[in-house]
């Protein structure tokens, strides 16, 4: 099997927790911190760390707002994040189809 696709996999997205967050955000226009944490059953610290990495890579943007007197942080994929996620999926599909052809 050609190892090249594996080497091209985006290291930022590839981590299990970050991949889960990217998958959630790819299917939703936006999601609050709480929804991400509750849906994925992750700890506050884990979600914060992964979101920080994704934000620093330019994959995720956030907005802060007030709802019922409480601060709510909402996250969404940036266009760069969406492109990188699509490229990641394409690579995975390439790997699968390579094996099917054999």
């Amino acid at each position, binding site marked *: *099997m050609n190892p090249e696709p594996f080497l091209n996999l985006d290291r930022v997205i590839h981590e299990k927790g970050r991949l889960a967050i990217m*998958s959630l955000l790819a*299917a939703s226009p936006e999601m609050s911190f709480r929804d991400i944490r*509750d*849906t994925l059953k992750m700890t506050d610290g884990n979600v914060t760390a992964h979101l920080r990495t994704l934000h620093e890579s330019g994959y995720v943007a956030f907005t802060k707002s007030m709802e019922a007197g409480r601060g709510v942080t909402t996250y969404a994929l940036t266009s760069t994040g969406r492109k990188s996620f699509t490229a990641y*999926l394409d690579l995975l599909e390439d*790997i699968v189809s390579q*094996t099917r052809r054999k």
Partner: protein
Amino acid sequence: MDSNWASEQLQTIRTIMERSAVYRRALAPLMLSTGLIGLAAATLPQFVPIRTNRAFAIYWMAVGVIALLATLLLVRRQAWREDEQFWSPPTRRVTEALLAPFIGGFAVAVFLILYGQKFESLAWVAASIWVILYGCALNAAGFFTLRGFGLFGRILVLLGCGLFLVTPAVPGDVPIAAHLAMGMFFGLGQMAYGIYLYFTERKRRA
């Protein structure tokens, strides 16, 4: 790393995306319970006189509230059993999709309560508008569900339009006919769809 790993990774991504976007609670129990409530509610006026337009509106509003509460309890129980949050993003999206047509239906009921005495055949017209609006609600919610909710909604819209168009030809006691129409669509229709879902959902989950 191999292609099995890649397939598993894709499957995981698909599952997470579905969890985020698609309402995954079993819909069959919801349809069956609301269908049963609708059917029972349509049967009662055949024995108890609910004949004025105003009584018709108040009665079916109460039935709607009971059906809504039963649905909420079932959804909550399903969420609790699967150890998932009740007010999840997909649940919120489905609720938002349902809300606008439901507000429309509420306005029709209020109109019937306020001005029901002034017009004849209004109960029938209200029943047909409720079927159309309910169809619109299911059609909108269908974008966030796995099963053919949207198709069922569109069928209801078409049938509701048919009901509306035959209004001048409705014979005899209009509220009684309207109760029967409500039982037919909100009772039998939903129960039939619930039975269909019961078998197809079970097959899908197996």
